[in-house]
């Protein structure tokens, strides 16, 4: 069976693409799938530190594209999981060092022996984004419940559809339930109403995410982490399982609203 290429993108920077990529990779690899992550953010390499593999880089994606390394040589194996690998971005080059055709060729080779190829897209809608989307079978769009992130996500939804890769699947990241209840944050229903694409995950804001990136150990490795659980749920949905969405969103009744109103700030 040929592997599936999933690209994680967002338009806006800082919404959690890299964290999402690392955690979905971990969660898929935990199920026994063979997973490789590609950091497509050339010049702003980050997936390596989030995954905790920064000290093991020898070759990068540009070395593969320019023929200095074979694909297997550039794949760093994550020893915490049976079959998880990273192909790092080059740090001293720019997006133009790789073309969409190069990405398609690389993905074709990886499909032969991997189950999932996760591509971490850079922010923006230029070359780096086009590189990341070119080989995709499925696109995951990460957004935050916040006006600028949702607006940018909408632009990406349109671009993905224009590329014939649609519909993208939505991940709403960094949801703060107490703010949603208070009416100070867009709810998942609000964001879905606006973007009108299928939802594949809702991830709560969680301090554990910062701790996990401090340590280079993605939260999905920790059974007790709530955000990690949300990422494991996304992985299971990608595997085709029907997983109910976490109960982040209790509808608040009159008394709760009253409580939130007078509650301590």
């Amino acid at each position, binding site marked *: 069976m040929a592997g599936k290429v999933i690209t994680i993108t967002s338009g806006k920077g800082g919404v959690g693409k890299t964290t999402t990529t690392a955690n979905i990779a971990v969660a898929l690899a935990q199920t026994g799938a063979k997973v490789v992550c590609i950091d497509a953010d050339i010049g702003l390499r980050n997936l390596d530190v989030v995954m905790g593999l920064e000290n093991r880089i020898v070759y990068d994606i540009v070395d593969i594209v320019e023929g200095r390394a074979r694909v297997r040589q550039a794949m760093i194996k994550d020893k915490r999981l049976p079959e998880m690998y990273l192909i790092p971005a080059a740090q001293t080059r720019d997006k133009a060092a790789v073309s969409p055709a190069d990405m398609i060729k690389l993905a074709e080779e990886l499909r032969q022996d991997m189950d999932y190829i996760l591509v971490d897209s850079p922010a923006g809608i230029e070359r780096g984004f086009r590189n990341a989307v070119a080989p995709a079978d499925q696109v995951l769009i990460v957004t935050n419940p916040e*006006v600028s992130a949702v607006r940018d996500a909408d632009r990406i939804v349109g671009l993905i559809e224009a590329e014939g890769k649609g519909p993208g699947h939505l991940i709403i990241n960094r949801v703060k339930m107490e703010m949603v209840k208070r*009416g100070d944050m867009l709810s998942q229903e609000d964001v879905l109403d*606006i973007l009108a694409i299928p939802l594949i995950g809702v991830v709560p804001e969680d301090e554990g995410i910062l701790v996990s990136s401090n340590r280079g150990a993605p939260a999905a490795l920790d059974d007790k982490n709530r955000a990690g659980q949300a990422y494991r749920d996304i992985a299971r949905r990608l595997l085709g399982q029907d997983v109910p969405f976490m109960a982040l969103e209790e509808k608040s009744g009159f008394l709760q609203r009253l409580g939130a109103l007078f509650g301590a700030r």
Partner: protein
Amino acid sequence: MTWWERLIGWTSGTSSAASAKERLQLVLIHDRTDVTPATIELIKDEIIAVIQKHVAIDAGQVEVALTQDKRENRLVANIPLLEGTSRRRRR
């Protein structure tokens, strides 16, 4: 946010999340179609001019707007005829 602001928001039903949603919906209609409010005005004026050649309309009441349902966008024009333009009267 102060308690007072929260009370105002709570009683009037305009939470900051509600205004975020409303503002996003408005801005996205134009983002998605690449049709600016100025273009809409221009379209409206030209529609009025064309229709007025044939039928008397109430130019002040003409509405032209972009609307959307899910990801489908539509240009909707509402053009009231002036009274006295029906056939029966004219005959």
